[in-house]
């Protein structure tokens, strides 16, 4: 049976699409699943850096599409998990090097090899977004609890609905429990209520996320971190497990008492 194809999208840039893709890749690999992460941000690749695999790239997705290598040759094996792979974006090309048909074919071929294919979508709602969501069985819409990010997420959800693409589920990233408690940030319930789609996870904002992009060690490797735990729980939900939602308020109190992040 072919694996599930999941696209991580958002509309707005900088909300944490690539971070989410990298961490869900790690989270699913930790559960023992075989995973291919596809960097669909042609020309602006970053998933390689998030996963700490930038030095291992030989071929990229455009090389494969143009017939210069086999799919297996373009896949970069992760250092930590033998069944986690990256299909890197081409850095010196642009989005026009990939058609919707190309991406659908590549994603389906990758899905023949593994249990989950995660596609990291480019920001925006143009061609790059369209080819990234076209092969998806499920789209994860990532947003932050901010007016601009929620508005853009709503556009993406609207486009997915209007064009009868894959069902969407919501990831709320960078929620600061401390600010929510002081009524200075939108809470998860309000965002879910406004966007009216199913929530799959809330990831608290912790300093460790910043460190992880510098070191190439996704935070999901460490489940003692609340953000790592949140990503691992999303991975479990994607795998079909029924995992109760973490109480971000409680987590923050815990963090505050013990100085964890």
């Amino acid at each position, binding site marked *: 049976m072919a694996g599930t194809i999941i696209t991580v999208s958002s509309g707005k840039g900088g909300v944490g699409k690539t971070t989410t893709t990298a961490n869900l890749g790690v989270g699913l690999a930790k559960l023992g699943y075989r995973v291919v992460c596809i960097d669909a941000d042609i020309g602006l690749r970053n998933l390689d850096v998030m996963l700490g695999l930038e030095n291992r790239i030989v071929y990229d997705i455009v090389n494969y599409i143009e017939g210069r290598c086999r799919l297996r040759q373009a896949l970069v094996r992760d250092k930590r998990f033998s069944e986690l792979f990256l299909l890197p974006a081409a850095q010196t090309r642009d989005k026009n090097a990939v058609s919707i048909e190309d991406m659908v074919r590549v994603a389906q071929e990758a899905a023949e090899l593994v249990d989950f294919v995660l596609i990291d979508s480019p920001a925006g709602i143009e061609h790059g977004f369209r080819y990234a969501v076209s092969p998806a069985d499920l789209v994860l819409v990532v947003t932050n609890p*901010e*007016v601009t990010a*929620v*508005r853009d997420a*709503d*556009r993406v*959800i*609207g486009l997915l*609905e209007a064009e009868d693409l894959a069902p969407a589920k919501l990831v709320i990233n960078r929620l600061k429990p401390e600010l*929510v408690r002081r*009524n*200075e*940030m*939108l*809470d998860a319930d*309000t965002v879910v209520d*406004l966007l*009216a*789609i199913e929530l799959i996870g809330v990831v608290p904002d912790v300093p460790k996320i910043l460190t992880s992009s510098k070191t190439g060690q996704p935070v999901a490797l460490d489940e003692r971190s609340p953000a790592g735990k949140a990503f691992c729980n999303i991975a479990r939900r994607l795998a079909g497990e029924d995992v109760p939602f973490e109480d971000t308020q409680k987590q923050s109190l815990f963090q505050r008492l013990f100085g964890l992040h």
Partner: protein
Amino acid sequence: MFRRKSKSSQDIAAQRLRLVLTHDRANISPGMLEVLKDEIIAVISKHLDIDTDHVVVNFTEDARETRLMADIPVNTPRTHRRKASS
């Protein structure tokens, strides 16, 4: 005197988002909605005596469904009497 508690930035964000999303989803700007309201008043007024000052035209939302609601008070002999006596 007690000072009225000011609205939190959380409430303001939620309120602004609600409005922005409604207009985005219906693909109509707040200004165009006013134009639409004036046109509705003009059309209805041709056939009915309505209280044009108290017409309310706005959107209501239920999950991802948007509805345009127009609340148009109609002047009847009774409302005229009430207005005259007040």
